[in-house]
């Protein structure tokens, strides 16, 4: 779209305001983290990554986020499917509930998990511990990133008319084949977008994870928890180094999201 009218001073002021705002809030932190990480050369960075607890933290952060993505892919798709394709009492309530992880403070969510799954809780596990253990970390990551897939897929799913499915059925395609050949290709980009957001959120989550995991060093401590601890321990180079890793991942995700968004809108048009 091209703006044909000449820009008034007010337009310029608004643009400057938004750009300045973005620079301070988004740009400067990125520059700071990169600059600080390399402030004392490469040595402190290498030293940080040689620390086995840091390696472990980074490993569990990404691997558990990966599992959260798989779980939420299935759960999110199922939720979107049920919400668009079925009528049942309480549907609107369920639809509203999907946003709970967005509106709840993650710290409170983490606390609720301790109460629920901790010793003496309603759903206290008998086989293996959840709270202050890796399953708790995973659960927290799954919880906070739950709505993304559902919310991305839902509108696209709603735009697929039942006629398309019915046509496939009459042509002899089973329900599964219809899902794979007719539905999935339609929602693929939206699903991917939701999954990338899920991964980003699961990697970056701190509050819920910190509460439910107890941030036990070398065990349940995640990358974000490590950054927090390093700052408290006056270990800025450690904090900046791990932050740098997280940030590079985030920037990669950002680029990926924009590519996907382009594909999503190109499709609709």
């Amino acid at each position, binding site marked *: 779209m091209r703006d044909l009218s000449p820009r008034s001073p007010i337009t310029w002021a608004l643009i400057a305001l938004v750009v300045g705002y973005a620079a301070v809030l988004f740009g400067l932190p990125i520059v700071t983290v990169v600059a600080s990480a390399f402030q004392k050369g490469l040595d402190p960075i290498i030293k940080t990554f040689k620390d086995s607890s840091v390696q472990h933290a980074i490993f569990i952060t990404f691997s558990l986020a990966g599992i959260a993505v798989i779980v939420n892919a299935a759960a999110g798709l199922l939720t979107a499917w049920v919400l668009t394709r079925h009528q049942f009492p309480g549907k609107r309530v369920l639809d509203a509930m999907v946003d709970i992880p967005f509106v709840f403070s993650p710290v409170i969510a983490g606390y609720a998990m301790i109460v629920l799954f901790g010793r003496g809780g309603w759903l206290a596990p008998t086989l293996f511990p959840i709270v202050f253990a890796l399953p708790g970390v995973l659960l927290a990551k799954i919880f906070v990133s739950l709505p993304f897939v559902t919310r991305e897929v839902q509108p696209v799913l709603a735009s697929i*008319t039942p*006629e*398309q499915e*019915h*046509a*496939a*059925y*009459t*042509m*002899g*395609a*089973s329900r599964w*084949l219809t899902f794979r*050949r*007719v539905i999935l*290709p*339609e929602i693929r980009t939206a699903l991917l977008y939701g999954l990338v957001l899920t991964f980003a959120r699961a990697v970056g989550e701190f509050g819920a994870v910190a509460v439910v995991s107890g941030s036990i060093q070398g065990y349940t401590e995640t990358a974000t928890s490590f950054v927090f601890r390093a700052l408290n321990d006056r270990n800025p180079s450690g904090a900046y180094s791990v932050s740098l890793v997280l940030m590079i991942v985030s920037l990669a995700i950002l680029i990926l999201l924009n590519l996907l968004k382009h594909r999503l809108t190109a499709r609709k048009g």
Partner: protein
Amino acid sequence: MSIRLEHVSKFYGTQSVVCDVSLTVNSGELFVLLGASGSGKSTLLRLIAGLLPADSGRVWLHNQDVTHLPPQQRETGFVFQQYSLFRHMTVAENIAFGLDVRHVERKQQNKQVQELLDLIGMADFGKRMPSQLSGGQQQRVALARALAYQPRVLLLDEPFGALDVQIRSQLRQSLRAIQQQLGVTTVLVTHDQEEAFELADRIGILSNGTLLEADTPNALYHAPQTRYTATFLGHANIIPAQRNGTQLYLGDYRLPAPPHTEHLANQPVELLCRPEEIDLTHTLEDQRGHVVGQGIVTSIAQAGPSVHVSVILSDHVTQTPLNIVLPPFRQRELALQVGQCVWVRVNSYHVLGGTL
């Protein structure tokens, strides 16, 4: 017999949408289900395809009871009103879908797809995406896709409903040609009586989920069984009458009773006269048709190849004006004017049982 429905009913909750419908569609026939919106015609089509389960009754396709078979095993081709093409597939991939599901060899698929593209007059469109096609082209592709795997029956649900008038009549003609060329048994659902007349071998009239009658377009137009059919198809002039002995009595006027109406003797009946079967004269002595009364011309409208005249019959209970279509030369001969008193004569008429 390609399609046989036996006492098929469908309920949504306690509301019946299809009510005890029995129907036979012959091999190679194009049968049109005609009804107003909400008459249950689309539901009936979905019951045949198995997209909805029937609550009672049986569905037979080619002498096989398919009542309990899922849509995948009924081998029907279904064309929906709109937007049913797979948006992420090319035209060729859409058409090949049914063949692909049946694991037809790729080479054979390509050959059949090309034949179908030729059949629908879109030979060079195989690589296009549905979004690059007009509505009419999309429906052609939908038709080709439904025919690709040689279904036992072709089912079309208001296939031209979303298209412009001009495209609609083009598509009707090509549908009729393709259907006759392939000899595929077809059921088409529509609310458009013109469409029904143009396409149908036989028409079934649906109202409130009930199949009122099924017959050739001509028979339904000239000799309907029910008042609903009479008024739904074209314009109907309905005049109350009494049938006694061999005569029909309309007040002071008498007409010979048509054959096969003996069962209606001594009861009130209705005379159905189509607008083009009525003539007007200035004198009683004229020999044309049968006089049904005298009336006053209330309006005259030129409508291209014909003239529409309204006449209110005097000495009759009904004050509904009769609609009459005259050829322009007749109107010139008569020099009709609004307010004139004329004799109304019918050339052909049909008797409806009064209770229906």
